[in-house]
């Protein structure tokens, strides 16, 4: 399920709220905890001129310049995760062992262009 934070109306690249529920994907029978987690995702434009807040790469800055000159030929840079954090999942395996596993890059903390 996805839903936006109500007060944020700008269409600039930033993390948006996304809660992933393991029961929605039918994994609740073997995942003990968490029941779900706030994974988030990146969405929004990377417009010209890119500001510092948009965590832009040099390449993205140049791409926006080229895009402003030739919107048909060159797309705007993409809005992508630039900082992710891990989560741990507690689950039962097929041999009924209890497993605690660490997974990297599961939560979007920051987005950038």
């Amino acid at each position: 399920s996805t839903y936006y934070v109500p007060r944020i109306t700008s269409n600039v690249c930033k993390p948006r709220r996304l809660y992933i529920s393991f029961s929605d994907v039918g994994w609740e029978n073997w995942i003990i905890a968490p029941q779900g987690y706030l994974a988030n995702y990146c969405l929004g434009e990377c417009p010209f001129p890119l500001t510092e807040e948009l965590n832009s790469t040099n390449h993205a800055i140049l791409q926006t310049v080229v895009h402003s000159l030739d919107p048909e030929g060159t797309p705007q840079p993409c809005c992508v995760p630039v900082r992710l954090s891990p989560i741990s999942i507690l689950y039962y395996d097929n041999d009924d062992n209890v497993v605690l596993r660490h997974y990297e890059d599961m939560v979007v903390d920051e987005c950038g262009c």
Partner: protein
Amino acid sequence: LDVQSQETLLLKALGLKARLSPKTLAPVPPLLWKMFQRRSKPGPAHADAKEVQRPCWVEEFQVPGNIIRVFPDQGHFIHSREPQSLLCLQKRLYFNLSALEEDEMLTMAQLEIRFSQNWYQAASPARPFELSLYKATQMALLGMSGHTHSRQMLLEQSFVHLHKSFVFDLTQVAKEWRIPARNLGLILEIGVPPLPEGEFCSGIDSFLEASLFVVSLAPSQCKTPRKRR
């Protein structure tokens, strides 16, 4: 890709072959709950500096790893025909480590033996008891007498005071057990030397629980952070 193929890909990325289907849902060991809760503090700021630097490091055991499994004991009590005059208990301990994938590196294995509070509080502190742990090296055949050729002593400890639980490092033994043919389990003996049949021996069978904590490292799931160019 259809939904099922996407799910298979996702599970593979998570180090799993398919959606899991456990048969019995055993209680989660308290230590594992604590470890999970410690790792699940909310917000991006939860990742303290140490964890960011060492994402595949298990602080609690001070070893590398990103997977912690608790294997329940599948061994049976050994009921000898001969009266075990000095033994309160003789039990085989067996842990099926087949869940470990080939590319996983086992970095720690810790055996925990727990007694119920009732039993260890009832035991007399003045009478030491002895706990012995052997590695089974050969299947004991029916009618085979003696244990000298079928087991190898791992440790022996005397205790004046009983404890709620005992913890032993079995990392080296567990590494050998990754070859199924070499995994013949352990033999646990608890004895009370001065008393042939002490009164606090009775009922110990029902109060004993054992499990094996195993930490392993799946290198494919542990990327080193990329440096910004």
